[in-house]
């Protein structure tokens, strides 16, 4: 089905391009003849862009706040981040711009994790069923999602192998083997790999797919103090990936008993919030496993006094979901909006030509020269050189694909030794002298990075609501708020809240705790739990989630 839509799109684009190009020529020439100058040339392109999008469906066909689900899948596809793979449901192809963003995330993470002396490994994808079954909760939790290799060539395998849904059961037997004495500690390993979870619900690019890419870290320490410290160190790196690279504000916190990783001691996470849908989204997790897995997998060491003790373990993960959260946070009705630090291309240079005029080649050269200047200054830039598209079409394309800045160069710009710079985030336009361009571009990229974060932060803050009673809670939930509420911290109460809010008008499952933020507002002594009326122990974030 997707294919036929694509084909349709392809042919329609093809025919449209040609007619559009011609009309562009006419309009551009008219503009020049009537002496309206460069500004009107640009604006005629602008007008044309709108018509064109309507006719060719180049852009996003739905508004973000009207149909969020379809908007998201369209920006991911038309923005060239993923391709749907209709042959296997719930799996997506990651295209070059998605991979470039992932690489940028990997680079920052690698550099930080190296400072912590964590080393990169590669562990096999195949898990023997027996190993997977070793940790009871683990297999119970994952069994419904495991994909099994049962045949090799024409032979039925006597023992089927699972494809890793996560690698604890592969890695910890090696910990048991590699760790002998206290000198072998701490042991800190991580890997970048693909994992497989055959989930049936609601596949969404980046957010939930049956195969995805991630980083998983596994560490073992001699003492609980060291392990505790690392849990938070890693959480801080994750939070920096989101806030500094992806410009997504996140909340650092601790998961409730209900939501923590089974078998672990406690789970910390960073949580993002999507205002349009009023849902929280878990952005990354860092778990303290305590000694539970050490017991299960016999990971012990001889301490300095020659006594055998069990190690303290952590595990932590960050996946391509991060790209999805970024798209959800910044995207708008025109398409993707990339924060400059991760944008595959920070600047797209587009010429605003006059067809038939002799200086066409001059314009082309100017674009190339501008691009080279930008590249030499370390800015990721490209020229949209395609000669079969009008400038209006290219503007729309650049906006759809999310590059933070567009530089337009027309004959008038050339004559005035200037370029026109257009911001993707605000749409603001400015004419800048060629001489001061680099500084201006660098400055703008910084501003955009900051602005995207600030806007996102403000939106989340506007959506955040403190409540103290059940009625306030229900109302806030129906208004798609991110709710901060005093809570008695009892498992049964959380389950009860979930049951009572399931099937309300906002849809989806019931509300639950997202996390208990590390930064706690002051809790008055007599504060009561919003749900149970018992004395409250902490402030926690509540809401529906992805």
């Amino acid at each position, binding site marked *: 089905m997707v294919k036929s839509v694509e084909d349709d799109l392809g042919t329609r684009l093809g025919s449209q391009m040609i007619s559009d190009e011609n009309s562009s020529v006419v309009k551009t020439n008219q503009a020049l003849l009537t002496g309206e100058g460069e500004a009107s040339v640009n604006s005629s392109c602008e007008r044309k862009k709108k018509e064109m999008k309507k006719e060719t469906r180049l852009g996003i066909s739905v508004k973000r706040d009207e149909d969020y689900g379809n908007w998201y899948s369209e920006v991911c596809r038309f923005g060239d981040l993923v391709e749907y793979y209709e042959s296997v449901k719930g799996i997506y192809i990651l295209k070059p711009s998605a991979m470039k963003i992932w690489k940028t995330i990997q680079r920052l993470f690698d550099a930080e994790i190296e400072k912590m002396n964590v080393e990169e490994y*590669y562990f096999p994808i195949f898990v023997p069923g027996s190993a997977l079954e070793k940790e009871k909760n683990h297999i119970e939790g994952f069994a*419904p999602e495991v994909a099994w290799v049962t045949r090799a060539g024409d032979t039925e395998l006597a023992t*089927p192998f699972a494809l890793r849904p996560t690698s604890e059961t592969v890695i910890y037997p090696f910990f048991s083997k590699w760790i002998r004495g206290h000198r072998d500690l701490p042991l800190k390993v991580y890997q970048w790999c693909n994992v497989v979870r055959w989930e049936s619900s609601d596949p969404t690019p980046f957010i939930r797919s049956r195969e995805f890419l991630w980083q998983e870290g596994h560490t073992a320490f001699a003492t609980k103090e060291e392990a505790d410290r690392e849990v938070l160190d890693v959480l801080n790196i994750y939070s920096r990936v989101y806030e500094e690279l992806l410009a997504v504000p996140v909340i650092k916190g601790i998961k409730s008993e209900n939501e923590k990783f089974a078998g672990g001691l406690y789970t910390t996470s960073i949580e993002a919030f999507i205002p349009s849908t009023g849902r929280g989204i878990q952005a990354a997790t860092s778990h303290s496993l305590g000694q539970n897995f050490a017991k299960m997998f016999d990971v012990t060491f001889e301490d300095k006094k020659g006594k055998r003790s069990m190690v303290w373990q952590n595990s932590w993960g960050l996946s391509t979901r991060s790209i999805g959260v970024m798209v959800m946070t910044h995207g708008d009705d025109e398409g993707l909006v990339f924060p400059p630090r991760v944008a595959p291309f920070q600047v797209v240079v587009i010429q605003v030509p006059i067809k038939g005029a002799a200086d066409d080649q001059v314009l082309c050269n100017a674009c190339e020269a501008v691009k080279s200047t930008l590249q030499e200054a370390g800015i990721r830039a490209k020229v949209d050189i395609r000669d079969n598209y009008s400038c209006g079409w290219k503007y729309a394309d650049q906006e759809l694909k999310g590059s933070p800045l567009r530089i337009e160069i027309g004959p008038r710009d050339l004559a005035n030794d200037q370029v026109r710079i257009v911001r993707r985030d605000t749409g603001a336009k400015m004419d800048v002298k060629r001489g001061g361009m680099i500084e201006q571009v660098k400055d703008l990229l910084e501003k955009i990075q900051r602005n995207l974060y600030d806007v996102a932060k403000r939106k989340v803050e506007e959506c955040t609501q403190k409540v103290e009673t059940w009625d306030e809670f229900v109302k806030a939930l129906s208004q798609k708020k991110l709710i901060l509420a005093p809570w008695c911290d009892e498992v049964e109460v959380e389950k009860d809240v979930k049951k009572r809010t399931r099937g309300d008008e906002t849809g989806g499952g019931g509300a639950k705790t997202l996390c208990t933020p590390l930064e706690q507002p002051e809790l008055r002594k007599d504060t009561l739990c919003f749900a149970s009326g018992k004395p409250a122990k902490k402030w926690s974030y509540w809401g529906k989630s992805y």
Partner: protein
Amino acid sequence: MVASLRLPSLTSILFPATTRRYPASLRRTVCLRNRPLSGFATAPSGTASPETKSPEVDRLRSDRAVTPRSQDFNAWYLDVIASAELADYGPVRGTMVIRPYGYAIWEAIQDYLNVKFKETGHSNMYFPQFIPYSFIEKEASHVEGFSPELALVTVGGGKELEEKLVVRPTSETIVNHMFTQWIHSYRDLPLMINQWANVTRWEMRTKPFIRTLEFLWQEGHTAHASPEEAEKEAKQMIEIYTRFAFEQTAIPVIPGRKSKLETFAGADITYTIEAMMGDRKALQAGTSHNLGQNFSRAFGTQFADENGERQHVWQTSWAVSTRFVGGIIMTHGDDTGLMLPPKIAPIQVVIVPIWKKDNEKTGVLSAASSVKEALQTAGVRVKLDDTDQRTPGWKFNFWEMKGIPLRIEIGPRDVSSNSVVVSRRDIPGKAGKVFGISMEASTLVAYVKEKLDEIQSSLLEKAVSFRDSNIVDVNSYDELKDAISSGKWARGPWSASDADEQRVKEETGATIRCFPFEQTQGTKTCLMTGNPAEEVAIFAKSY
């Protein structure tokens, strides 16, 4: 663990009572076998199914001395991998865990090639690991070539799958499936992509790095508007691999064309680089395929050319894998252990400080640190082994076994004379040792860099002369048999049939490794038939 990251709800983990299980029959067999069985290289013949190996029983002996290479090449290879901590056996027979030292070599390979791929206009992508079985069947010779090695997923999410899925052995089929949707006109061409991924081939005879059920690789896939362009691309990529082998890994590979029998399943032409290992067996270290229109016809990958006519695209694919790491070990290693070419060595220089009395320690260590600092600043990958739990002698042996190209020794006397001792890994004993190299930063850095370069070229020279002294020019089948039985490679004119080639394989165990690009001039007659021959072929036993 990190599980919760992707789970829509954690309740399924916490309250699993309602969860579906995979079929009971499956589970029973899963629990059944847990006895330790075969490790690598000793796959039991006859059993088609790899066994679960209990991780407690490991065959890798990391604390034992390395078996001398001259004594037992295979045991030496496995020992080196264990002792140098390059890899460990995975929990499933035939799989491996790549440990940081081995992974760092792979990363050096990636770093170099990734830059070259980008320079030549390729973009990285990621394609799914699961391929519907029907895709694999579309290209007839492809399915024939791969079907015995396919791992099939038939159960997912607790249910029997409607269509069984192949865990990718290579990605031509899924790539073509997508290319068909992305390519419309000549403007979309050439389309040139690459991916770094894991692939699975259910092999029976396995060996760490050389042949494992799962391995890591890069696979490039391109589509072009003309056969000439595709051919140029295929040749360009084998050229990049060749340069990489020579310049970075000091492996003098022989680039050439595969025979029809050895051509990739689904390709028109396969180009290869063939390397001679220390035991004189050949290792196919990289391949580049001209796929012609085989896949584009099977998948209907067409474009409208400049005249508006529909044509099938012309394609290539090319790959290098973690096998290359095995090639590096087996080319340069010696009785002592690993020997790494400086350009890809994760650690190029190790500094071993030497002191006897406590009052000497501070001076020696501070000198060692400043030497390390100076080298690091100059971009040399250096490691200071300053632990006091091992003797200097133990450290010498250990780092030699790990294959570090250069060792710097600093003792109290060196500190007072402001100099260091430098030892080369590739020249054993006194001959490779130079005393009194000034500790002064610029002098030392210049000296170290020069030595690293020397080692790099010396390793290549050694490998070239080893290779050339083990290739015999032959003109008859008898000569060929003699050469092969004495463990050498045979090079001779060849124009005989596939059946003859098959016969050589059965009778001697050798296969045509390639028709080398570098051909001798003059008229040739086929060594088998006596008919005129256009080219010489290289025959050898191989991994």
